[in-house]
């Protein structure tokens, strides 16, 4: 029996954390993720969960404490946004390279400067090479569902990698919307107890965590991370299938919306996908063959699956809520283009940057992008390979 509720994205993630009842949660507040540890601290104070909450003095310490707890053998997580994540930078790599299955509830926010509290993906996209799993949400429902699946994926013995559960700052974190929640008992039996094979506080089997690695061994640990990331592909799909059995909600690497027969496709991550779907319905009513690929899993990157799903499209707009400042497009643009190239795609692809620092993107913006895609396909000419959408004129 699912429970019909209305919650903000932050409330939904905090509710999932209560149901998971992890062992340890260190945290330091930063907008717009502050509410997550705030709600969790309330649950703990009210006896609704018994997680050890550690208030720390910075995000460097919150991730350090999470790493320490996870190494000790505890199920641990923290939450942050933007510059908070930037301050965790060193520990992000420590967590991944030590193969610690901890979680980070990330509420995506622009990095400074200029200082800005609103949504874009520059925080998590900047950490795309840190060795973390990354899963993104369109709305509060998906943020909740992804959080519930996080530890099952991350703790799987073939994976053992840290996982980032991302949602869009303010747009979903502070928006109250309808949601269906699972019962506590259903979540508890789905998530299960964490029983690590090796952990620091096991006197029967002493181990070292985080020792120095000389050149003779360093590269092998990197290969181990890469193997784990590859293994995560199947695990993510398996856990999604199990989750569907308890929730009725289906997840994969990505969602295809009206994509099967689409000539013109948009590829996007996060909350703007919902806005794009409204544009698609309006254009489909006019007979336009438009579709969407909403990427859920960015790490591991499902390159072959994306290329296969887009193989029939004439033109594609890859949408980045983050600029790489490479002069060569955004992170999603670069990786999807590579995937298309490796699959010998003949589609014409453009890479548009949108929504930086919370700049709104509307249904009309998506209609305009589809119309540009149609022109590109008809003329065979790409005039604006990399463009900013919604700039002030």
């Amino acid at each position, binding site marked *: 029996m699912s429970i019909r509720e*209305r919650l903000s994205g932050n409330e939904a993630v905090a509710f999932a954390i209560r149901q998971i009842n992890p062992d340890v949660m260190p945290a330091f507040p930063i*907008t717009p993720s502050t509410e997550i540890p705030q709600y969790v601290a309330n649950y703990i104070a009210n006896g609704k969960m018994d997680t050890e909450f550690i208030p720390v003095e910075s995000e460097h310490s919150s991730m350090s404490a999470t790493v320490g707890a996870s190494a000790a053998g505890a199920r641990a997580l923290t939450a942050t946004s933007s510059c908070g994540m930037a301050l965790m930078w060193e520990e992000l790599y420590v967590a991944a390279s030590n193969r610690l299955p901890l979680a980070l509830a990330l509420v995506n926010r622009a990095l400074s400067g200029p200082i800005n*509290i*609103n949504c874009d993906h520059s925080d998590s996209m900047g950490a795309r090479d840190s060795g973390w799993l990354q899963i993104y949400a369109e*709305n509060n429902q998906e943020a909740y569902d992804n959080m519930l699946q996080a530890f099952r994926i991350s703790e799987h013995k073939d994976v053992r990698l840290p996982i980032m559960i991302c949602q*869009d700052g*303010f*747009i*979903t974190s*502070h*928006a*109250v*919307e*309808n949601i269906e929640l699972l019962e506590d008992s259903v979540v508890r039996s789905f998530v299960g107890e964490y029983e690590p094979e090796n952990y620091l506080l096991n006197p029967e089997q002493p181990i070292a965590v985080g020792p120095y690695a000389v050149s003779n061994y360093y590269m092998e640990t990197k290969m181990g991370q890469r193997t784990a990331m590859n293994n995560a592909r199947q695990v993510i799909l398996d856990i999604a299938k199990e989750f569907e059995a308890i929730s009725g909600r289906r997840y994969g690497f990505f969602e295809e919306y009206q994509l099967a027969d689409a000539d013109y496709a948009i590829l996007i991550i996060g*909350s*703007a996908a*919902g*806005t794009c*779907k*409204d544009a698609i319905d309006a254009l489909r009513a006019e007979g336009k063959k438009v579709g969407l690929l909403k990427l859920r899993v960015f790490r591991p990157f499902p390159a072959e699956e994306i290329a296969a799903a887009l193989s029939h499209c004439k033109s594609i707009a890859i949408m980045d809520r983050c600029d790489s400042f490479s002069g060569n497009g955004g992170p999603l643009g670069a990786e999807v283009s590579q995937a298309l190239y490796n699959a010998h795609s003949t589609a014409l692809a453009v890479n548009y940057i949108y929504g930086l620092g919370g700049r*709104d*993107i*509307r*249904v009309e913006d998506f209609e305009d992008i589809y119309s540009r895609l149609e022109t590109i396909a008809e003329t065979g000419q790409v005039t604006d390979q990399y463009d900013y959408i919604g700039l002030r004129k």
Partner: protein
Amino acid sequence: MSQTVEIRWHGRGGQGAKTAALLLADVAFKTGMHVQGFPEYGPERMGAPITAYNRISDAPIRVHSNIYTPQYVAVVDETLLESVDVTNGLREDGAIIINTTQPKEAILPHLKGYNGRVHTLDAKKISLATLGKYYPNSPMLAAVVAITRVMEQEAFLREMELSFQHKFAKKPEVIHGNMEALKMTFKEVQ
């Protein structure tokens, strides 16, 4: 196509415009609707103009952009009429609801020729009469329900009473005053 009502709230930080939008989402959800209630943050400080939004629909809501052509606008603080273009994009088949102590005729010149319905409410008078203090958001919430008719007034009062009982579990003395503020608003809104 589904029917979606779109509402934009204008207030100042600290006055409860965001809370009113979230409460409206809350109560509409309880009457079985699909809802969105969300704020648009500028600088976070007391007194700065803030905007909040509601979408209320009989079908799931997917769009995640702000609202540019609302059916309804609620202005919680009349001093905003001079600094914020409150009727921007407001549909002429809709309405604007303004919290003001002034008569409607005095407000009209500030509305840039808006041709839709204009409603006023003296939330200060109602709030002082029922709560003894000035909290504009309960009267404004009731005014929005009365004008937009997104739900029956009876159902609204029933759900709000339950909501106040929960919210003010430790301050039950303010429940009656808040309920009176809602009921008085239904009679007073013009």
